[in-house]
């Protein structure tokens, strides 16, 4: 019940295309859903996050869509660029467990020029 399931495991997108990564969770106590971006040799870095009281959050080319009833959320990267090539992790946490994040398995995104 503590798991966050992420798909796909890997994704290849052409430059300018839309990258979509999906996550699903079971535990309805989760109430914070961040996405992290990780480049090789680096630690994960917060990209964008959402609370379940909104269905969508947009920051630049990155959008989170959140479906509370389906317990699913997704990351959309518009106009994908080669510099977006990285591993993306969705995560979830509960209000009383601050920095304890439950991560998804990760998606390795490759954006081809």
């Amino acid at each position, binding site marked *: 019940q503590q798991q966050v399931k992420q798909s796909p495991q890997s994704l290849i997108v052409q430059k300018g295309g839309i990258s979509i990564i999906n996550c699903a969770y079971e535990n309805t106590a989760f*109430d*914070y859903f*961040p996405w*992290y971006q990780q480049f090789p*040799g*680096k*630690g*994960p*870095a*917060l990209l964008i*996050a959402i*609370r379940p009281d909104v269905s969508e959050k947009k920051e630049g080319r990155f959008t989170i869509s959140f479906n509370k009833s389906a317990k699913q959320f997704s990351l959309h990267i518009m106009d994908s660029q080669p510099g977006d090539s990285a591993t993306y*992790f969705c995560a979830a*946490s*509960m*209000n009383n*467990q*601050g*920095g*304890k*994040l*439950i*991560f*998804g*398995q*990760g998606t390795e995104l490759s954006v081809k020029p």
Partner: protein
Amino acid sequence: EPEVTQTPSHQVTQMGQEVILRCVPISNHLYFYWYRQILGQKVEFLVSFYNNEISEKSEIFDDQFSVERPDGSNFTLKIRSTKLEDSAMYFCASTKRGQINSPLHFGNGTRLTVT
């Protein structure tokens, strides 16, 4: 921009040896964490630390593991007797507040190889 720094970047040790992984969190942060990432797998929570004590630990964080904040700047993870399955990337993270929307800042990790 302030960073979480970790040393060493790569540590090789023999099975059964003790290792200490070091982290310097961002200076005004109060909450500290260790996470682990086995090669090709997801990032997993190990332990959280606040006010000089462990606030939460995962099942992975057994008696072989300990954490310490020996002074005002360092935060360490000790593995007493390493096993082959401890080989992983270990990430230190810190945040200013313990609330869920207080961003976690991760270091670049220490790759631990146990032979």
